[in-house]
């Protein structure tokens, strides 16, 4: 088993499946810590109770305030970029009717987000269907891994957008080409993490399977799958993150409906407020996707230590 080593950045990721990574920490603290923190007992002095809230609530709030403050100061003298107040007013206007339709090229921001999410879901879903079983095979067979690993190492660093013309050529349409791009960028983390997970199934568990002489089906359902699941979910989380990054760029190129296209359209209309709103929307949707997968990963993680 040790013969196979997938030496890629992503391969090192799942060392702590189901746990947070450094980059996501700050955001997570903001999003999760308040409910997780145990309620202070009623007898504790008020100052201490406030102190307990400082880290999970106050610190992120200050961070956000500083960001908006800098934004405000930087845009005081006018120029191309609108300030926070102007942007807020526009945002209220946009979100008062997110689901309108005025023809194919003028739809509410809600429809644009939904369209992008659909593309991501489709491309990502196909990637999961192909990538996870392939990862299992690579993890189980040293020969197959040695055969496929160089190809993965070669193709993985390629920007997914480089695949877009191939998609356009093959599918002759913009929409499936965008989905294809999502597929290509989502598949690598899932293959690699699943394969690493399979390779790292503790020998002890496999020895238990051998002593019990379990059937191959039982080995897969009772031992391999649960042991690999945290790694798989890490791969899925990385994939979703990349897919959401890539869809914006892909849609800028392909057009149609979608949050990426919307950004480009608003740029052509020179509505910079809308671009800033879109940046926030993209960020928040990405954050929610990641949080949802962290929650799922925690639910299925057997590693509670």
């Amino acid at each position, binding site marked *: 088993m040790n013969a196979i080593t997938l030496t890629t950045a992503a391969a090192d990721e799942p060392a702590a499946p189901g746990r947070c990574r450094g980059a996501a920490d700050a955001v997570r603290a903001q999003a999760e810590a308040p409910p997780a923190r145990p309620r202070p007992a009623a007898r504790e002095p008020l100052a201490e109770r406030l102190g307990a809230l400082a880290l999970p609530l106050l610190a992120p709030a200050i961070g956000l305030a500083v960001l908006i403050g800098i934004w405000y100061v930087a845009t005081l003298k006018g120029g191309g970029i609108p300030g926070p107040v102007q942007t807020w007013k526009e945002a209220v206007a946009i979100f008062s009717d997110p689901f309108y339709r005025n023809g194919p090229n003028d739809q509410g921001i809600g429809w644009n987000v939904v369209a992008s999410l659909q593309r991501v879901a489709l491309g990502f879903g196909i990637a999961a269907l192909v990538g996870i079983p392939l990862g299992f095979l690579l993890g189980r067979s040293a020969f197959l891994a040695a055969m496929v690993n160089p190809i993965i190492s070669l193709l993985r660093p390629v920007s997914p957008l480089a695949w877009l013309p191939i998609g356009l050529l093959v599918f002759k349409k913009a929409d499936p080409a965008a989905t294809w791009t999502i597929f290509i960028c989502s598949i690598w983390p899932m293959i690699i993490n699943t394969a690493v997970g399979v390779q790292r199934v503790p020998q002890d568990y496999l020895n238990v399977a051998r002593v019990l002489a379990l059937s191959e089906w039982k080995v897969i359902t009772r031992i391999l799958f649960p042991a690999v699941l945290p790694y798989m979910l890490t791969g899925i989380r990385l994939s979703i993150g990349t897919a959401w990054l890539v869809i914006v760029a892909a849609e800028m190129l392909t057009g149609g409906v979608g949050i990426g296209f919307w950004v480009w359209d608003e740029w052509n209309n020179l509505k910079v407020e809308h671009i800033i709103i879109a940046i926030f929307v993209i960020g928040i949707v990405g954050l929610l996707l990641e949080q949802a997968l962290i929650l799922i990963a925690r639910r299925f993680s*057997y590693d509670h230590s």
Partner: protein
Amino acid sequence: MEKFVKIEGVGQTFDTKQGRFVALRDIDLDIRQGEFVALIGHSGCGKSTLLNLIAGLTRPTTGALICDGREIAGPGPERAVVFQNHSLLPWLTCHDNVYLAVERVFGGREGRARLRERTRAALALVGLSHAENKLPHEISGGMKQRVGIARALAMAPKVLLMDEPFGALDALTRARLQDELMKICEVTRATVVMVTHDVDEAVLLSDRIVMMTNGPAATIGEALEVKLPRPRERLALAHDPAYMECRAAVLDFLYQKQAPGEKLAA
């Protein structure tokens, strides 16, 4: 004397980067049905390697191993193993960990209710009925090891193989589990092979202590029959001359004839 497990001329070599490594050579050992055999020796003497050979997890380079008249060709549930680090599946409850084994061994012949009954009986035998719905990470190290023993016993194995089952436990827990194991063996009349490096544990539990020479190329140095009557009582034995004699013999072997790091002058 009925030879239940026969080990004949077994040797084990591993191919490593530094060339061939002879772990075991010329092992001859017969084990009676219902006998409790302890394998003792310094670390690296290949006692776990020998246990793995009986388990069938590894195949010998030379020689043959026979269990109940059939050659050992691979691992199987009739030779249950209690692993050093319990090896419970962390995503299954204690009940389900044992049930997995019970289902494999008896699933073809018995209904679910009967299988559950067997599982509960095994957990009751090690005194863990109250923890059957707990996950392994929710219970202590000693309890995990007991679940591991319950899992092995529930398979009604012909031979119970234990690889330093209490090595990772504190002294008090270890003593309690040793007492429990003695009681269980009395009830089930199990044939047991146990790897240990604890002299007191070996003398207290076994009918025979097989002492191994230092590796590499380790083999059986001496075998000592422990003729203490059963049931054995830890406190009473502490001053028993026969017990002390056995203990002295094993200590003499380990620290005089096989002082750590010295190779037997053969």
